């Protein structure tokens, strides 16, 4: 019974045990969530230490080696995502402890929120560790069902319509992914990512499978042509749920895309496909930013910002995918996109939590009502500003490190278009995030009702998340080296 086996067991099963216990004992959700946070955080720390010292951890579930059994693989990339998920989920569940507290009589939303949130965490951990395409499918399906339920948890007409729209896209996405996985197994006799890397050629079956998998996962990551469901869904859900939905859920399907294109079928992608993915990402970035500019509800601005920020995650494909994987700048572009994914998860979750606290204080999230909110909620507005810095990509935040890495890589690759897009993204983000901040510091009009007080302890959680996103930029050397561990073709000298 090695330490790595214990760590993996804790990370995989603690959230699931917590969810099942919360489903059994209706009113002790917050207490069970606290116990789950402690257990999973412990497992995460042990895993990070093991990966940092001994390199990537490999575990054959049930003792069955590939191609028969399911392989778990915890490399730097997986460790980074699991650590970020643990941090973000800890902050979210801390803030959610009050609105979804278990009172004397059991309330519907207070009962179902906790198992759903812990199932979401368990599904994320299962996806980040799995090395088998069908196991990723089951994890993704669990994640999607829980996310749809979280969108519809408030039961209003618009949120149910948003949840239904999300469900329709998600159903089609999982079917396409399933079709791809079925064709790959039929052709190669295995769905293990490491084995597929040796066996995937460019036969028509593999091309159709890759197209289906990419289409399915793009629908789940709300890449441009399939983004319509995201803004109403993420803004309709309650704030802690929106933080999970925007910060973590799309990262899981993006993570599977990375595993597929960079590890299962590294040289299958022609430059055309990679350019298409990058182009769609650029279009999503511009489209999301412009729409965020003229929303008048805070949560809708943040939701459209997610569409934009997810867009330029896809720049990783033209810069580091396909044949250019062996180029020196590929590691920089790859690491830049991962930094962006991690810092966006923290900053976006923090921003949605701040929006939740502001809604608790003034009762709604229409921008005009936010005038002078800084007097009532100084810590929250400060956290919102820090998160905005990360999203805009200003130094010293993690977002800046990500942009810097990707821009140097795009100049080194001779494709300055992506660098231009990154600069434009920063400017547009500054534009649409400036409006709420300006209103927060403006003078409140006299007749505005006094905002209700929100306890300081709960304001600390989004602040901690925003600070973590900034710290990711300041101490970026250690995380940069960490996510290189176990990366295929780790050409480290990309940073010069």
């Amino acid at each position, binding site marked *: *019974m090695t330490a790595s*086996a*214990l760590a*993996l*067991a804790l990370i*995989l*099963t603690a959230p*699931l*045990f917590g*969810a*099942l216990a919360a*489903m*059994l004992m*209706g009113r002790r959700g917050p207490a069970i969530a606290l116990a789950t946070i402690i257990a999973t955080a412990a497992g995460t720390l042990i895993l990070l230490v093991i990966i940092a010292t001994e390199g990537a951890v490999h*575990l*054959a*579930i*049930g*003792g*069955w080696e590939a*191609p*028969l*059994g*399911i392989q778990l693989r915890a490399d730097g990339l997986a460790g980074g995502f699991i650590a970020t998920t643990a941090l973000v989920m800890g902050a979210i569940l801390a803030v959610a402890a009050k609105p979804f507290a278990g009172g004397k*009589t*059991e*309330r*519907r*939303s207070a*009962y*179902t929120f906790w*198992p*759903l949130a812990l*199932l979401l965490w368990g599904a994320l951990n299962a996806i980040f560790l799995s090395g088998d395409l*069908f*196991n990723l499918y*089951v*994890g993704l399906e*669990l994640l999607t*069902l*829980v996310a*749809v*339920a979280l969108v*519809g*948890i408030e*039961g209003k007409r618009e949120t*149910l319509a948003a949840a239904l729209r999300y469900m329709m896209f998600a159903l089609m996405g999982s079917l396409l992914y399933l*079709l791809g996985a079925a*064709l790959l197994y*039929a*052709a*190669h*006799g*295995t769905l293990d990512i490491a084995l597929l890397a040796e066996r995937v050629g460019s*036969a*028509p*079956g593999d*091309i*159709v*499978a890759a197209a289906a998998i990419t289409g399915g996962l793009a629908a789940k990551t709300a890449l441009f042509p399939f983004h319509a469901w995201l803004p109403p869904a993420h803004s309709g859900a309650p704030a802690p749920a929106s933080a999970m939905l925007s910060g973590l859920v799309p990262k899981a399907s993006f993570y599977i895309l990375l595993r597929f294109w960079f590890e299962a079928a590294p040289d299958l992608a022609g430059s055309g496909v990679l350019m298409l993915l990058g182009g769609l990402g650029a279009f999503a970035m511009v489209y999301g930013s412009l729409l965020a500019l003229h929303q008048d509800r805070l949560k809708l601005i943040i939701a459209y910002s997610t569409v934009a920020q997810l867009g330029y995650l896809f720049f990783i494909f033209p810069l580091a995918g396909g044949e250019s994987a062996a180029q020196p700048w590929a590691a920089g572009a790859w690491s830049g996109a991962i930094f962006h994914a991690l810092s966006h998860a923290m900053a976006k979750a923090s921003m949605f939590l701040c929006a939740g606290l502001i809604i608790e204080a003034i009762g709604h999230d229409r921008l005009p009502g936010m005038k002078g909110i800084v007097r009532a909620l100084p810590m929250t507005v400060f956290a919102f500003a820090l998160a905005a810095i990360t999203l805009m990509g200003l130094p010293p935040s993690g977002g800046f490190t990500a942009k810097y890495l990707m821009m140097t890589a795009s100049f080194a690759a001779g494709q300055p278009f992506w660098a231009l897009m990154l600069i434009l993204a920063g400017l547009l983000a500054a534009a649409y995030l400036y409006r709420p901040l300006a209103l927060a510091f403006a003078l409140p009009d006299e007749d505005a009702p006094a905002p209700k007080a929100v306890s300081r302890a709960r304001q600390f959680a989004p602040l901690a998340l925003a600070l973590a996103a900034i710290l990711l930029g300041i101490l970026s050397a250690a995380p940069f080296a960490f996510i290189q561990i176990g990366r295929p073709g780790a050409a480290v000298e990309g940073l010069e």
Partner: protein
Amino acid sequence: MIASIFDLTLCLVILAAAGAATLGRDAFMAVVFYIVYGILIAMAWLRLGAIDVALAEAAIGAGLTGVLLLAALARVARKAGKEPASAASVPATTIATALAALVITIGIAYAFLTLPEPQGLQGHVAENLAASGAENPVTAVLLNFRGWDTLLESIVLLAALLGIWTLAQDEAWGGRAGLRHVTRPGSVLAQFGRILPPIGLLVGVYLVWAGSKQPGGAFQGGTVLAAVWIVTIMAGLMQAPRVADRALRAALVIGPVIFLALAVAGIFAGAFLVLPPAHAGWLILAVEAVLTLSIAATLAMLVFGPPEPEEKR
């Protein structure tokens, strides 16, 4: 083996039933044709030598999905009150969609026809079958070689139920699940509800017990047991359980909890979810029994739906 006339006709009938189910004008007829289609697909699975899948398709694919569709149709008709025009969309889009669907079908068929010669895992499974504790290779894969998939899958089922309970109305929370069934005592349904359960229980438990040696298993057996519970409640012999009922929640959760505990216990015997070959046999049976209980309870609660407010029940 060479495609016989029977296979050809079965495929044509399957396509005809699927066509009627997707393109028919009336929704109720579409669902009826979907159930017929599901049974025909189950027969196709028999021809493909996959008996476990045929059982699952007939029980879950055709049976339970059909019941869910019929129940949804009835509830929407009551709540939406009227029939909005069905596929009266603009002809231009229908032709474009038809062409796109045709192109995708040809692409998939071409990909299927140009698959390299088969590299199945029958050999690997056969070699390790003795150490897996089950003689039926499919059960060995489901509960041992790829046990982690099955564990996550039972939690997906529970997540769907949790999602359905989330959609209940606040004032109905804690109440009885689904609509109340008005059945005249002594009517045919009441008699049917008394005769069927014993046979259903016998068949369900047999399916689970036979699962380790012949086709069968927790999901197929669980579905039969769920059907028995649904019929007893429809026959008015029992009331649908309260959502807040502690015993119900324990039954829903017991399967995945025991399987998870077994998975964690596995790390002391080597790695995550290891079933030591010496005890693998009875461990698989124990897990299947507990899983069947949870699956039967979850599937039945899925059919009953969220708790309804008292006066509307």
